């Protein structure tokens, strides 16, 4: 089959790879019909996530048709499914508590050692990401082996176009969980850093959950425009002092809740950010936590901090004092996708949520490398790339 593989910083290629087979009883093989490039794939593209190996097949947002099933799979050949990016067994302590991205049984045993050393505990397996999360071959390919296919995939009725439901695999539930982690009360002001796909879906979700005002922060005019169209007020950090503006726009209180939808590769010319980026470039395992630092400073006393943005290592100059003194609550984590797919599918079908506005470019899988380059270099116009094998 053809698949997009990683070869190093800013080097991804579409090449031949062996077709996947059923390996375990609960597996299914999916023939991919649509797959997307995620903002977190750009962290891999930039080489700032540890544990990625040459030849790894990337991609964790995908859907397709079931072509083969293991004896314990509950799927049927021919069904159309969207596959969550988190691989979860559905029966361990964590899955039973709906903490699917903390599944104990999906990350291969020998892959758990490094993760235990780095994070204290091993996390669940993820498709097409680091070997810290299992090194599973991903979905930017013609076919994918889907383990625990009786737990993750959600069946899509015929007649519903791929693009309407594809983002149930990651970014829509991720934006939704980001807003849910804010415990929004009616009338709350919520500030969102980053108007990438997750930030935009967080804006949409926060408004649906009853926020009175959502303020979106970015520097790309087109992305800010998309946020505005969803109903957000916007701040362009290239022309405005963000902290001052947020205070003024929230009655001098500060936002009730803040969402860092940026993660470990913040943009901007703040001194802390330049230092972080330099350290990151030299492989010192540092995360660039500029957005999170600002969010902690901006949020009101006793406010809520939600972090869907991806971090992988360590951060310094972290405003721990603000976190403690202001009595903040912080909630974060890789998305527990399986917890949200059913409800969000229903909301899409009811027309409450539309995700198709995000897609700016559609390319054949063969041109995936060009998709990565442009999604990385031209973030103003390239807001989301969907690939078709």
């Amino acid at each position, binding site marked *: 089959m053809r698949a997009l593989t990683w070869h190093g910083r800013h080097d991804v290629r579409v090449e031949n790879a062996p077709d996947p087979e059923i390996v375990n009883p609960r597996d299914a093989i999916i023939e991919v019909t649509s797959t997307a490039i995620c903002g977190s794939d750009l962290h891999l593209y930039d080489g700032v996530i540890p544990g990625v190996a040459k030849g790894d097949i990337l991609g964790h947002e995908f859907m397709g048709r079931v072509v083969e099933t293991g004896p314990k799979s509950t799927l049927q050949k021919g069904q159309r499914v969207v596959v969550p990016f988190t691989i979860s067994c559905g029966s361990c302590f964590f899955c039973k508590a709906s903490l699917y991205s903390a599944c104990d049984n*999906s990350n291969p*045993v020998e892959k758990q050692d490094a993760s235990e050393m780095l994070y204290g505990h091993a996390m669940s397996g993820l498709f097409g990401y680091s070997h810290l999360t299992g090194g599973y071959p991903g979905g930017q390919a013609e076919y994918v082996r889907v383990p625990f296919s009786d737990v993750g995939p959600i069946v899509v009725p015929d007649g519903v176009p791929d693009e309407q439901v594809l983002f149930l695999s990651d970014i829509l539930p991720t934006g939704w969980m980001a807003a849910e982690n804010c415990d929004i009360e009616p009338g709350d002001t919520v500030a969102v850093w980053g108007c990438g796909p997750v930030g935009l879906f967080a804006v949409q979700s926060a408004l649906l959950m009853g926020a009175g005002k959502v303020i979106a922060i970015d520097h790309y005019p087109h992305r800010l425009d998309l946020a505005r169209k969803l109903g957000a007020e916007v701040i362009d950090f290239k022309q405005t002092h963000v902290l001052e503006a947020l205070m003024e726009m929230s009655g001098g209180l500060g936002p009730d809740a803040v969402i860092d939808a940026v993660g470990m590769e913040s943009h901007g010319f703040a001194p802390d950010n330049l230092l972080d980026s330099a350290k990151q470039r030299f492989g010192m395992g540092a995360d660039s936590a500029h957005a999170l630092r600002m969010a902690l400073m901006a949020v009101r006393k006793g406010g809520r901090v939600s972090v869907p943005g991806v971090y992988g290592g360590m951060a310094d100059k972290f405003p721990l004092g603000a976190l403690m003194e202001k009595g903040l609550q912080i909630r974060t984590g890789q998305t527990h996708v399986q917890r949200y797919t059913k409800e969000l599918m229903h909301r899409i079908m009811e027309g409450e949520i539309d995700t198709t506005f995000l897609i700016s470019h559609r390319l054949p899988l063969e041109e995936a490398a060009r998709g990565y380059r442009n999604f990385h270099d031209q973030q103003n116009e390239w807001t989301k790339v969907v690939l078709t094998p």
Partner: protein
Amino acid sequence: MHRRKTDIVTVTGLAALAIGAAAVTRLMNETRNRPPDSAPGRTARQSRFGAYIVAGRTVTIDAPRDRIHAMWREPEQLARFMQDLRAVERGPGDRMTWVIATPGGDARIETRLVEDRHGEALAWRSVEGSDFDIEAKVQLRDAPAGRGTEVEAHVAWRPHWGMAGQWAAKLRRADPRTRGRHELKRLKMLLETGEIATNANQRNT
């Protein structure tokens, strides 16, 4: 002038050494002679077990104690989660020979079952002439709040070639501590999900 400079260096060096030694002595006194705490002995900062290395790990498995006990008693089941186990040969009485793949070739460990309390504990001890001097024990306890069973595996062994051998094995992830941890996690996967997670895309890789 040159001589005096050397003296200053010597005196400063000796003073630094004295301060260092005092600090180490103080630290040692602080960690010794303390009333025992509740933690398992193998997690102690300064543990001595003679020539033996002791390691252990606890995992909670959502399965009844009987079922977990049975997994450790059946050679066919052992092979499902002990990846390096090439064969188990039953000997006379409670004797068993475990053939284990190691970086240096197959090792034969002949053991005696020294404890077998149904649903509670199992222990094996290697016999004279075995390739390894090793003792292993598995203890089963009900986990709180209906979470299943706490499985505590415990192994004590005398490393070949002393500590150097231990480090060499550890670097190749073939030491009993690493193997034991991996085996427990595989057992958990098998009992909780019916399979062992792998990222392999094909059956023969």
